[in-house]
């Protein structure tokens, strides 16, 4: 009986670094993260199996399509590393089990990662960074570069290690009720910060003047910067209720701007 095989720390590091760097470098619409996944599993498979035939066979498992939010998805790579280790030790895990698991996790993790990392965490960081950038200060971009990369490096490492050591229970913890409470709270911060961003950095004003009354001043007296809010709501309504793409909404705004300028609702007050 051969002794139990375990993946060395070195191979796991190599696998993790291949993923954090190369998850999307060879992207195509047909096989989005498939080659990133192959490159990350290569050091694992190379170490666990003795013969070349076994290595080829094991790596072939990962030729099926893979795509998720790649940063949170490092957990899946860690998870399959632990499954591969179990398989190399003779446990009955077939390709279907591994690919079934991968396919099953792709969707939920993509939804979670897109909404929490890309849709909330990045905008919060950018919101704060924009605040620090007023007047062209380098503090803003530097803040974003440092905080984002540190958190993501250690966060992805943590996710990979959790996936490896806890297996599928790590993923269950991510989608359970406990994390739902955390998720809704993070989204709440994101919603408020982006509300503040909309009030601070957007500047929609009207030059409309009815019978000597400056409409913009009147509006500011009722609800400061209300036009920002109305336009955000209009765009949101066009995208969610009318199912228009952002590009089409932008084109609609071009028309709104043109008509507004011609009839005198908008006037950026340009002069040389």
């Amino acid at each position, binding site marked *: 009986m051969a002794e139990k095989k375990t993946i060395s720390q070195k191979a796991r590091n190599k696998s993790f670094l291949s993923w954090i760097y190369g998850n999307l470098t060879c992207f195509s619409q047909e096989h989005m993260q498939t080659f990133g996944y192959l490159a990350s599993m290569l050091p694992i498979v190379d170490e666990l199996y003795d013969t070349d035939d076994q290595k080829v066979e094991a790596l072939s498992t990962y030729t099926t399509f893979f795509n998720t939010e790649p940063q949170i998805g490092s957990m899946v790579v860690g998870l399959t590393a632990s499954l591969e280790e179990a398989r190399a030790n003779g446990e009955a895990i077939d390709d279907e089990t591994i690919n079934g698991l991968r396919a099953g996790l792709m969707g939920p993790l993509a939804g979670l990662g897109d*909404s929490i990392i890309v849709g909330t965490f990045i905008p919060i960081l950018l919101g704060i960074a924009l605040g620090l950038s007023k007047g062209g200060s380098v503090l803003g971009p530097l803040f*974003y570069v440092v905080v984002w990369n540190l958190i993501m490096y250690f966060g992805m490492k943590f996710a990979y290690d959790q996936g490896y050591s806890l297996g599928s229970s790590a993923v269950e913890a991510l989608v359970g009720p406990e994390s739902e409470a955390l998720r*809704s709270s993070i989204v709440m911060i994101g919603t408020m910060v982006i509300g503040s961003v909309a009030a601070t*950095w957007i500047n929609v004003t009207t030059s409309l003047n009815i019978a000597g009354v400056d409409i913009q001043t009147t509006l500011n007296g009722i609800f400061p910067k209300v036009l920002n809010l109305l336009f955000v709501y209009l765009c949101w309504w066009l*995208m969610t209720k009318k199912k228009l793409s952002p590009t089409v909404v932008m084109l609609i705004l071009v028309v709104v701007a043109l008509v507004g300028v011609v009839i005198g609702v908008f006037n950026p007050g340009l002069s040389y």
Partner: protein
Amino acid sequence: MAINAFQAALLGLFACLASLPGMAGTTVGNYTLGRPLVAGLVVGVILGDVQTGIIVGAAIQLVYIALVTPGGTVSADVRAVSYIGIPLAILAIKAYGLDPSSVEAASQAAAIGAAVGTLGTVLFYGTATMNLVWQGIGWRAMESKEWGRIKKTIPMVDFVFPWVSHILFSFIPTFFICMAGESMVGIMKEYLPMNGIPMMTLFTVGTLLPTVGVAILCKQVITKPLDWVTFAFGFILAGALGLNLIVSAVVAVFFAVLNYQLQQAKNVRLAAATSGNVSADDEEEEDI
């Protein structure tokens, strides 16, 4: 102000690193170097005007504050926005003699950035399509079933060959458009005077565009009508009460903590209720 060949080449290199999917990876490439605010700093350093770079980057960043690309569908290309759009916007601001910190400069930057970003999606599809060639090489290696060949080829396919796609679809377009930028902006200035309808429309569009960026984000986080109250609360903190973004974020954390405790309390009650049901069920089974 003109961009020389060396500067244009550097911008082209950063375009290769930053695009989605860029050669600096997802986290460092797309989500760091590809963010217009960070690119504003990079472009500012390359062109020798950091302050204008960051101001322009910040203005364009607003339009793309939530660039979520579910399933690889893109509405804008980050390399085009960041390393073609920002240099062109800087050139335009200088050519029109605008004060970089003015609302007008920000509006013009946002409009140019969005136009370039939308047209730039062609670069995204170009890169992705060309990567099919490298993936083809990878598939042939896998089919050969020779481990030695696979072990050498897969890292080449994932880490090295895509550089060729980027030289064609990131470096070359960025290099030539930035080199031609000054004369393009010059023509624009000649035919589109500041007080004409087209320019007034362009600037107005620039002030309206960031609302699309924020709305894309709202689409992500607002799932029920009451969430608009949360959004409006954040809006009022900054708009009516005049808090800056950092203080607003701290206030938001306070309410998030309250929300978390509320949700957790709900979970505990729910767990207690379900475990109560389970024991009740058990008793029933025993009765039977």
